């Protein structure tokens, strides 16, 4: 979303309950529980969120969670879209038959322990103060390098603890832990000479970066 135009005025800072309607709470809990059921892979869930069709994605937040849960569960052969549609129709009073469940093919990825933080034996490639340039990434899969910071030069301001690499983990291709850096960019590097003056800090994984000498 970073830098996309045309979304208009921000919403008001109103106080609101965690869930505006009971089904939203249910969608939230089902999201967390679908992640558990489909291989405990939060990154795969985020990738599923990104694969919700754009119109649906923008329409409603917790509906997006529901649709992502359905994608994740369908991907791993736990529940098919047809099953959910048939059950929903039956709950709405139609006497439609329920299809057979799919053949489960839950992907399996070895886990290096709970959570996402990891410790690496290899030293970090960059140090605080290094100038780094971000990759010209054109992946069709999941990544944590947003479009608006690609091919840009910034400065490492902190070394974070190494983490599971979302770009491989989201596809169940391994935890592949990577060093992670806070990198700061000048707003003019991102948006051109007329940009509002500010700094943008973002956490980026080592494979996204190369040193500028």
């Amino acid at each position, binding site marked *: 979303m*970073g*830098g996309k135009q045309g979304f208009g005025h*921000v*919403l008001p800072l109103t106080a609101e309950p965690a869930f505006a309607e009971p*089904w939203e*709470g249910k969608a939230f809990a089902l999201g967390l*529980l679908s992640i*558990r059921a489909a291989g405990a892979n939060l990154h795969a869930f985020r990738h599923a969120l990104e694969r919700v069709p754009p119109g649906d994605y923008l329409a409603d937040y917790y509906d997006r969670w529901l649709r992502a849960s359905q994608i994740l569960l369908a991907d791993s052969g736990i529940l098919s879209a047809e099953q*959910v549609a048939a059950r929903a129709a039956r709950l709405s009073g139609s006497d439609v038959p329920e299809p057979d469940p799919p053949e489960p093919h839950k992907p399996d990825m070895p886990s290096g322990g709970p959570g996402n933080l990891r410790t690496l034996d290899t030293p970090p490639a960059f140090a605080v103060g290094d100038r780094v340039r971000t990759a010209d990434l054109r992946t069709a899969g999941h990544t944590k390098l947003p479009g608006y910071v690609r091919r840009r030069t910034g400065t490492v301001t902190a070394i974070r603890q190494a*983490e599971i690499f979302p770009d491989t983990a989201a596809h169940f291709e391994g935890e592949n832990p990577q060093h992670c850096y806070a990198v700061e960019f000048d707003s003019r590097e991102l948006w051109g000479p007329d940009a509002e003056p500010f700094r943008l800090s973002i956490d980026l994984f080592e494979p996204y970066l190369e040193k500028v000498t």
Partner: protein
Amino acid sequence: MTTAAEHIDPAVRAEALASLLIERGLVDQATMNNFIKTYELSVGPMNGAKVVARAWTDPEYRERLLADGTAAIAELGFRGPQGEHIVVLENTPELHNVVVCTLCSCYPWPVLGLPPSWYKDPSYRSRIVREPRTVLAEFGLELGDDVAIRVVDSSSEVRYMVLPMRPAGTEGFSEEELAALVTRDAMVGVAEAVAP
């Protein structure tokens, strides 16, 4: 795959999904209700407000909080999902921090609860990294030209919380009185703490 689900009311779809998962033994109703109740009642910005009030009154705690947010926040009993690694950003008269997640809706659940609508909305996610001064002014926060802005995009598992400036005129306030001045919005960086 969503075409089949396209025109079904989300409340019905949620019910369908829940009933199928419960039948398969993959989800139980009690766990589901527990998740919902926890984030409705026990986890929210009142937690973060206690952290801020402690930092305002205890300089050593403030040091620990800025050095290792996760550990200092855990001292007050706040930990859990989306709080694996929390970094606290200190606002000063010279520097204003504001937090966003442009990729999804990452947010420090243990201290702030679940994110509000404005934080999840595309308008905030798209614009705060491009024109933060304008967006903050739309929210009602006019920063002087001498205040630098740092926008922090939560793109890894690190979660960010802003330590707002303590308002003037609060000398002698108790931690509890101070916590009442600390809003969710101030801890994301789109507002300042409430002046008494």
